[in-house]
């Protein structure tokens, strides 16, 4: 009996190991990606602590292939943007060396505060420079930083001011502001670049000391070393930061920065509500996918979420502590099902003063299902659709039906309206309603052959749609490498899509598979040469 059990266990283990292996890919181009504002803030917090305030605003990134992370690889540095970086850098550097922080951020005390101390400056830049440039500084770079600090000290008459001057120069250097896919002599991604790719993917921040150590020792080129580091990064609480960044990007949450609601139409939706709405959805994602290690598709059917005082007024639910956050589960029968029913999605994909079935339907197609919906023609007449007080066409469904009767409109509206109309029970601020203009709202519809009669039904349809899971795989790959998926990488995408299913749609498993894949680090030979040259220069 015992033998049979052992045999079965062995077969089981070997079967797991006999799954389809990762296909070989040629990789994609080496990239030069500008840090996002969040990455900049995360790095400053990781290197200097949360007490350092990073003010200012970065130039916005352009969304490409559905992601700002991709747009970050195709952005120009304007003079005004550089000016902004310089201001931020000076402000950060000033705080790092101020009396409150220097004691623990500067690893030594200068012989004299009023004179240069090359030894102390060298100690500071050796440690800090490595973390900022995400690699050890070359001798020339280190000498240069020390020389700038000494020259500045001479002018300013204070060692710490000199040190700050040199540090601020480092914070505007391309080596810091850009994530560079440097390659080694054999055309493969260098160890340091691998470390950066890993940490920005999993933590949305720069590599820590241990990961840089691993890169230096060549551990990331070995399967065991890479596995050890990937598992360490995934086990870190910082992975929440990475997951938040990914979904904020994938779901278009940068839109919150410019979100406006008409306060007379939606008095309960203030600035705090917008912030809380975004936070609610991110908390829901982190809780389901990281804390509970749940099925990604359940994001569209979950009733479990978190509420704040501001959101309690939107959802008309009781909150124990109006000043904080608390878990909340919408009861069975309630139509608040899935993240698409939450205030973040409903408010973000609406007009300032009214809901929009079309914008919501388009958002679900594009953001959740990775399907492209064409923009409307320039000469389209929206008068009827936007007339929310129309006495004949009282509901959005009736107005859209009349509008979409125009053949030039019907093609796209057929694609998005049935999805968006299922969410018409939520007004432009995400508040529940059963009527519009005194007429009952019909939330029935169909998405890709799956019919439903209410918002909860839409959630089930999305859960069942293969496009939902393949979309997140697609986006995560693209996000992780910071570029669109290359044509030669399709077999890898297909492999991960299948693996995601066999992993029960667990996000952690998907992240781990990507981070351990050879394809994740592969650089196409044609661009490797260019990256080699850039690294050499």
């Amino acid at each position: 009996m015992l033998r049979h059990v052992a045999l079965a266990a062995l077969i089981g283990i070997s079967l797991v190991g006999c799954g389809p292996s990762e296909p070989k890919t040629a990789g994609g181009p080496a990239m030069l990606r500008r840090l996002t504002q969040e990455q900049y803030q995360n790095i400053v917090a990781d290197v200097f602590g949360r007490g350092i305030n990073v003010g200012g605003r970065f130039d916005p990134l352009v969304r490409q292939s559905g992601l700002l992370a991709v747009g970050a690889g195709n952005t120009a540095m304007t003079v005004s943007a550089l000016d902004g970086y310089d201001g931020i850098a000076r402000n950060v550097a000033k705080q790092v060396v101020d009396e409150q922080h220097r004691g623990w951020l500067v690893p030594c005390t200068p012989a004299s505060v009023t004179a240069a101390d090359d030894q102390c400056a060298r100690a500071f830049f050796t440690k800090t420079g490595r973390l900022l440039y995400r690699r050890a500084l070359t001798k020339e770079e280190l000498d240069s930083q020390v020389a700038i600090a000494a020259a500045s000290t001479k002018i300013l008459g204070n060692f710490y001011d000199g040190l700050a001057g040199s540090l601020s120069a480092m914070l505007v250097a391309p080596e810091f502001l850009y994530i560079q896919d440097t390659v080694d002599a054999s055309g493969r991604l260098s160890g340091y670049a691998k470390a950066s790719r890993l940490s920005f993917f999993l933590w949305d921040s720069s590599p820590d000391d241990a990961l840089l150590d691993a890169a230096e020792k060549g551990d990331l080129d070995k399967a065991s070393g890479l596995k050890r580091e990937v598992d360490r990064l995934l086990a870190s609480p910082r992975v929440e930061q990475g997951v938040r960044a990914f979904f904020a990007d994938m779901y278009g949450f940068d839109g919150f920065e410019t979100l406006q609601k008409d306060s007379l139409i939606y008095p309960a939706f203030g600035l705090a509500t917008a912030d809380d709405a975004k936070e609610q959805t991110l908390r829901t994602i982190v809780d389901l996918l990281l804390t509970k290690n749940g099925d990604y598709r359940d994001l569209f059917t979950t009733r479990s979420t978190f509420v704040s005082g501001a959101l309690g007024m939107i959802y008309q639910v009781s909150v124990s502590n109006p000043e904080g956050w608390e878990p909340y589960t919408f009861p069975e029968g309630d139509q608040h099902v899935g993240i698409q029913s939450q205030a973040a999605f409903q408010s973000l994909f609406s007009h300032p003063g009214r809901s929009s079935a079309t914008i919501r339907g388009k958002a679900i197609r594009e953001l959740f299902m990775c399907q492209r919906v064409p923009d409307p023609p320039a000469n389209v007449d929206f008068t009827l659709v936007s007339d929310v007080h129309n006495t004949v066409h009282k509901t959005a469904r009736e107005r859209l039906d009349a509008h979409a009767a125009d053949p030039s409109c019907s093609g796209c509206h057929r694609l998005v309206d049935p999805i968006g109309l299922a969410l018409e029970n939520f007004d432009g601020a995400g508040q529940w309603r059963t009527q519009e203009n005194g007429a009952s709202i019909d939330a029935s519809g169909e998405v890709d052959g799956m019919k439903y009669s209410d918002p909860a039904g839409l959630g089930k349809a999305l859960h069942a749609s293969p496009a939902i899971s393949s979309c997140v795989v697609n986006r995560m790959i693209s996000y992780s490498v910071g570029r669109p998926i290359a044509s030669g990488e399709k077999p890898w995408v297909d492999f991960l899509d299948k693996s995601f299913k066999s992993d029960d749609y667990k996000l952690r498993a998907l992240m781990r598979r990507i981070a351990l894949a050879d394809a994740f680090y592969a650089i196409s030979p044609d661009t490797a040469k260019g990256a080699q040259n850039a690294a050499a220069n």
Partner: protein
Amino acid sequence: MKMSKTLILPALVAMQCIAPAQAKTLGFVVPSWSTAIYETKYYEECPEGLALGNDELWWKGLSPKDRDRLTNGGEMEPVDPPRRPMSVLRGPNKEDVCWNPTIVKDPPLRMVRGKTGLGLNLDGTQDGAATAKTCKHEKFTTPDGKTKVDNQMYRLIGCVYGWRKGEYIEAHADRERRDSSVGIMLLEVADVDNEKNDDNVKVTFFSTHDVLPKDSTGAILPYASYRVADMQQYGAVAKGKIVDGKLITEPVEARMPLYGHQIMGEMYYKDLRLEMPLTASEPGKPINGLMAGYYDFDSWWQYIRRIESVLVTGQWSCPALYVAAKQMADGYPDPKTGDCTAISTAMNIEALPAFVVRGDVKTASAGGK
């Protein structure tokens, strides 16, 4: 033992009988209230005119020489310091007349002489004759002419300028409460089986320290959650009923917070009753109700004497008000002296649907939907 069919059936029937529908608990926040004042366009209820103000009485008591000396040759306005605080020190030895209201004798307070008033019939009589719990007083008749009501507080302050509708004393205090979120009342209506008609509900009067959330126009938002303040003096429970959607409570002794003019006080009521519809004209809109009872004289005067800084704006005299209030008191006679110790009062309240959170219990659903 194997249960027989005959045993199972009664058990099932019994289970059905003891499983009533889930009773609701409704919550309301009360950010606004004011004394129920009945006014006519031409002040017909105040035939003697409006009450004399403290500054006026102080001015009359001064010699022409002192008037000149103390008011900078007549240039100093009544609200200007030091005239404002100085005018309260009208005692023989410069005592504060609000803290020593019997130290001088002012002309009698001009009070309401009209017959129409707002409120509830607190003593149950039609003529205001003395009862075991009340002193003899005049009743008002409601504007529709149907009900005799008690509201001696209105009789007392109805001709004081600052207490007239929309004037400074109550309007400013109301704004202060809404701006500061201090002294806010909560109402919890529990055991509601039927929001239209229910002969047995439980109403609790709480207070909260939580902030009143407002929209961009400053209006207080409905459906907010408020934690019950951990203050032992609040939390009176009244029995009540719902008749055609209107909540009507039985008399209860209750204390409620009172804040205004930067003074924190307390409203201590005996036989407090509440009459309020449970639904608004539109979901989320304010609900107007009436709260009435016998306002304990001491708790009322404790507050009044401390808001002497608004005497000038309010236009009353503390000694005259004090004496008149003692005379108008119509509830709860002192067993020794026979003098009544509380004044019948009615307050208009404005309630908004809210969630009343007691500890970790979150069973409340907001009322007014």
